[in-house]
């Protein structure tokens, strides 16, 4: 079995089933259960963990599919246990309605993504009152009491301790080209800055890696000078003031494939 990372990576058995159906690779009669299992095991490998909840769900779905397949292979005049048949069709309907619900929410998610993207271009002002002399005494209201504050602290601190975010599994890798473009703008504007400051808005380690690769690339082009006095020191960066013209990064080509 290969470790190839597929794009888009499916998420769980329901998603896998959807993808198999919509890519016309699955009808119940010619269903190759081994395909389904192989893909699913591959998925588990990429997760590097066995999620029991998801696995048992996968087994239920697989069992339903196998039964449906068995049923479809029986000659029409075979005697069938009606109760069993009814159960099976209930199971089938349940699976179908879940697939439908899943598709529905995927559609909503796409609409949300588009909306969030368009509103991300609108920036509000965040610096509050602007009186130079005597800003009004804002009567701050902490919307909870001491006990409530402790609860918030507990939630946040527990969240910080939990397993690393696996979100990157279902996202394309962060783009080094985008990071280069972003860095060029910002290093130019700030004249001198450091790596931590340039990456502090990033959520995911992989994004930071992309920015680090971008810095290496910029240094290679001679657009940026990077310095680190010792291994614990901040990586300071300054623009060399050279104009880049239309340098094209190898990352552009790489990331387009």
């Amino acid at each position, binding site marked *: 079995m290969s470790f190839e990372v597929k794009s888009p990576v499916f998420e769980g058995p329901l998603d896998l089933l959807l993808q198999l159906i919509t890519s016309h690779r699955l009808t119940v009669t010619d269903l190759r259960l081994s395909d389904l299992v192989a893909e699913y095991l591959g998925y588990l490998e990429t997760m590097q963990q066995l999620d029991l909840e998801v696995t048992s769900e996968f087994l239920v779905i697989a069992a339903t599919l196998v039964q449906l397949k068995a049923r479809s292979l029986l000659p029409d005049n075979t005697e069938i246990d009606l109760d069993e048949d009814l159960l099976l069709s209930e199971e089938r309907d349940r699976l179908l309605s879940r697939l439908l619900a899943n598709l529905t929410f995927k559609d909503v998610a796409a609409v949300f993504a588009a909306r969030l993207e368009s509103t991300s271009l*609108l920036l509000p002002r965040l610096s509050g009152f602007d009186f130079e002399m005597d800003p009004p005494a804002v009567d701050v209201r902490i919307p909870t009491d001491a006990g409530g504050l402790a609860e918030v602290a507990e939630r946040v601190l527990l969240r910080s301790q939990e397993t690393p975010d696996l979100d990157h599994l279902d996202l394309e890798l962060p783009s080094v080209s985008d990071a280069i473009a972003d860095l060029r703008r910002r290093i130019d504007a700030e004249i001198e800055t450091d790596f931590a400051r340039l990456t502090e808005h990033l959520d995911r380690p992989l*994004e930071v890696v992309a920015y680090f690769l971008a810095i290496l690339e910029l240094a290679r082009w001679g657009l940026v000078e990077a310095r680190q006095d010792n291994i614990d020191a901040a990586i300071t960066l300054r623009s060399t003031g050279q104009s880049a013209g239309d340098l094209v990064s190898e990352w552009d080509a790489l990331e387009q494939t």
Partner: protein
Amino acid sequence: MEIIPAIESILFVAESPVPLAELSQVLEVPPGEVTQALADLGERLSQTGSGLVLREAGGGWRLYTRPDLHPFLERYAATPSASKLSRAALEALAVVAYRQPVSRGQVSEIRGVDSEQALRTLERRTLIDVVGHAAGPGQALLYGTSDTFLEKLGLRSLEELPPLADHVPPPEIVETLERPFRPEDPSSDSKS
């Protein structure tokens, strides 16, 4: 007739959308007049080629920079763009939006995959919030969407979410979904 500039100055300093009722209260002017003044302000901003726009979302009114000027603001270093939400997080957000209050287990059930990470990401971005506890033994946390969610989606209130029925796949897709499960399907009869 100082209502319009007064509104403008309030929205300038506000750190979240300001409800109409509060503007009306602060200015001691009936809501109807405030609505008119807001319309006039929006009109003036767009007619004079201002770099700002006025929007109603997330329960109130707020000033924003014009979307087409975003490239300049990106170059002005103070505005790193937040990274995009993952597909998993977006799907979980969709489920929370339409099924709130909803527990992690319910979200996972609907999505067919454990959604703890996705919900945590949404909570960090303050798009969702814990809104209560389920009755029953586990007392599972229940999630709902926040005002930030409404503002970021450009919605005045949850009622403005399009009906879920609008998102149900069209009949052709439903047909495709059903086909593999129909043993009596003529197309698969002709197999061998």
